[in-house]
């Protein structure tokens, strides 16, 4: 039964930085991409699988499938959970999946977004979702790379500045 080693929001899902840096910091046997859109796109799944490191298998699930898969927490495999946006994380949490920390690593700027920190921008709706996630007791760290630790920005600190 799986255990979540890292829950991460990154709209690029699995890419260079994740594979090169995060995999080293957070050992895991499985990279789980939880996203309904990607789940429905078998071609894109294959493209993403190219980025998977040799040490971890890539799995793609819909939110519904992840709710089931991650419901019973165990110790194996260790899973790096990748999601595109806060709404997915919130859906999982509301559905009974638990992780005590959420890493927010990449959210692209676009119309209606506000830059929060480094390469992380969010719409007002997404900020509200992050606040709700925080309210549920999850600690949120805005952090693009695992080191140095000091490069991480705690969401609580960010809120106090907003």
């Amino acid at each position, binding site marked *: 039964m*799986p255990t979540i080693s890292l829950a991460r929001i990154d709209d690029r899902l699995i890419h*260079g*930085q994740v594979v*090169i*840096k995060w995999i*080293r910091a957070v050992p895991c046997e*499985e990279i*789980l991409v939880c996203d309904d859109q990607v*789940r429905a796109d*078998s071609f894109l*799944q*294959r*493209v*993403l*699988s*190219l980025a998977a490191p040799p040490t971890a*298998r*890539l*799995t*793609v*699930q*819909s939110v519904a*499938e992840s709710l*089931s*898969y991650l419901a019973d927490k165990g110790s194996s495999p260790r899973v790096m959970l990748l999601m595109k946006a806060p709404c997915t994380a919130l859906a999982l949490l509301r559905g009974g999946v638990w992780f005590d920390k959420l890493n927010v690593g990449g959210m692209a700027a676009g119309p209606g977004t506000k830059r929060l920190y480094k390469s992380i921008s969010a719409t007002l709706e997404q900020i509200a979702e992050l606040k709700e996630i925080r309210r549920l007791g999850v600690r949120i760290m805005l952090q*693009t*790379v695992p080191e140095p630790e000091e*490069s991480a920005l705690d969401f609580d600190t960010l809120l106090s500045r907003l």
Partner: protein
Amino acid sequence: MTQRFDIMNHVIIVTHGPLAAALLKSAEMILEEDLPDVKAICLGPQDNLDTARAKVELALAEAENGATGQGILVLVDLFGGTAANAAAWVLQDRVFEIVAGVNLPMLLEVLLNRDQMSAAQLADLAVKKGKQGVTDVGAALWKAPAVVAASEV
């Protein structure tokens, strides 16, 4: 748990033209860190073996900065080119590693592992990873197995 050696291998990149500096910049972007200790030497059209050698020696001295005895890995572009020959020429006076055919996959692996192994091991890794980094993406895509949804696990 990463094993850290006390020795931090110095890394120097030497190429024709701006490639060395550009590779370094790209690596810094991906790793999201500044790498002031990694030296990039960009040889110009006016550089001959003598001037190139002097630049390599200067970079070696700067990299060591008094802390001699550390391992050194010099990454060059073309085997048999001025950068490679100039670096190889310096081998007459001192021991260090040189790997030709520097590319970004190689450089990233070297940077991530430069404090984890000896210079000789780092050179072996550079060769291995540099080669592994050359892949036909289309072929890999068509060969990729269908991705499993773990509900089948």
